[in-house]
């Protein structure tokens, strides 16, 4: 889609090997290995409950019971020095409903970088408000916004500062097509102009086509990894959706034969 193949190869933003996560008493991620290259948008796709949010929580370092190797920006995931370098949007909007949009952003900006001059911080807040198209609602209470607006406030918080890695858990759910297009343009400009790395999960398969790279997951495992075109060619499908469904069916069939031969 964009001219990104000319960049020099470098250490990936995220590198996982044998990554296993246990939640409750069940393994939710089972021995995953994958990489997320720097400066690109990597889409994380897979059916509900397959472990996308768990994987993202492991990357930002809020998930307990993680084993295996997981390196993020050259450090083990959860390292304190990563806390200013990663922007994270949880799946459910995590902002204070009883504060205005601007008060929310002011607070998180102060936590992120208390040393920054007040004017710079205000400037940063204005920038992210414009990025998510909420300047007109800056003084509304977050709790009185619509669901889509509230999730954009949550996204705005993650954009504060200049995070090198953005981990966005379903940031476009519940948004109309125009807003979704605008946000994807924003994601591309973050990757291409600012060199940020994005890891974005989604249910919507047409969004997959907008990613540079995809990680397809199913039941706690990575089914396939690669550029959307490559996945389409490999499976002989016209869309990523069909490619994904074929891969899922293949995996399910393989699991069945394994079961019956055991």
């Amino acid at each position, binding site marked *: 889609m964009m001219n990104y193949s000319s960049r020099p190869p470098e250490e990936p933003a995220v590198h996982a090997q044998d990554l296993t996560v246990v939640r409750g008493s069940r393994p939710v991620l089972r021995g995953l290995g994958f990489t997320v290259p720097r400066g690109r948008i990597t889409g994380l796709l897979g059916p509900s409950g397959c472990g996308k949010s768990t994987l993202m929580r492991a990357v930002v370092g809020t998930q307990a019971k993680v084993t295996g190797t997981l390196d993020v920006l050259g450090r083990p995931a959860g390292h304190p020095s990563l*806390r*200013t370098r990663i922007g994270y949007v*949880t799946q459910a909007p995590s902002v*204070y409903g*009883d504060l205005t949009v601007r*008060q929310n952003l002011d607070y998180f900006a102060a936590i992120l970088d208390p040393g920054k001059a007040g004017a710079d911080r205000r400037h940063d807040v204005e920038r992210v408000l414009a990025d998510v198209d909420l300047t007109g609602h800056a003084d509304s209470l977050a709790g009185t916004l619509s669901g889509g607006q509230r999730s954009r406030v949550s996204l705005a918080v993650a954009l504060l500062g200049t995070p090198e890695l953005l981990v966005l858990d379903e940031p476009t759910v519940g948004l109309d097509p125009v807003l979704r297009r605008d946000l994807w343009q924003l994601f591309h400009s973050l990757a291409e102009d600012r060199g940020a790395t994005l890891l974005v999960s989604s249910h919507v398969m047409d969004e997959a086509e907008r990613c540079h790279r995809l990680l397809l997951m199913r039941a706690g495992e990575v089914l396939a990894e690669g550029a959307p075109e490559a996945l389409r060619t490999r499976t002989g499908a016209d869309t990523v959706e069909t490619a994904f469904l074929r891969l899922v069916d293949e995996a399910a069939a393989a699991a069945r034969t394994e079961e019956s031969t055991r």
Partner: protein
Amino acid sequence: MTAAGALSLPRTTATAARVLRQLRHDPRTIALMLLVPCVMLFLLRYVFDASARTFDTIGASLLGIFPLITMFLVTSIATLRERTSGTLERLLAMPLGKGDLIAGYALAFGAVAVVQSALATGLAVWFLDLDVIGSPWLLLLVALLDALLGTALGLFVSAFAASEFQAVQFMPAVIFPQLLLCGLFTPRDAMHPVLEAISDALPMSYAVDAMNEVLRHADLTTAFVRDITVVAGCALLVLIVGAATLKRRTA
């Protein structure tokens, strides 16, 4: 970058300001926090219309108990909301120390407690003729420490509450036994020895004792100093244990 344990002053004050700002959007809660103690004292004064001495003891004890209960409730609900809304997960993924968060809460609710106690103490001393021999400033100091203890206990129990329903039920579980045994209803030395021993181990007993010391003595007594040291020590201890219940990594 904050090292583990070290507090970052700007992050603590930003958190305290944020908590107060949240409260400001909820004027009804503020009104309830500030007015309910006053109304209760007012009622009590006329319930004990015929025995001013009883009002003195119970009134002074209540000046210590109100901030504890209010701050306990407010803190346990506020931190629970922070956990369930995902804002806690977001904050702990950011460069915020656990100590910053807890100190921020303690600072914000401590400030509210000062206002609450000043109103209640002022009303009791100047309008309801509560007969305090010691300095009303000491009453205020005890009230502040009680509020910190309430904040600490609220923070601590919120780790064990999965819902607002459970959080509210911790109030009878944690506060009522202390209320019964703190000497509000009967002097502690008149209780069954077993209960007296238990009451010796509960922090609210010292809060109430400290209030009564101020009520009866013109100057600082050693008993008073011991009592407020116990209350402050308990508050600090529970705050530290509460900090340990905040986990950056959760299941």
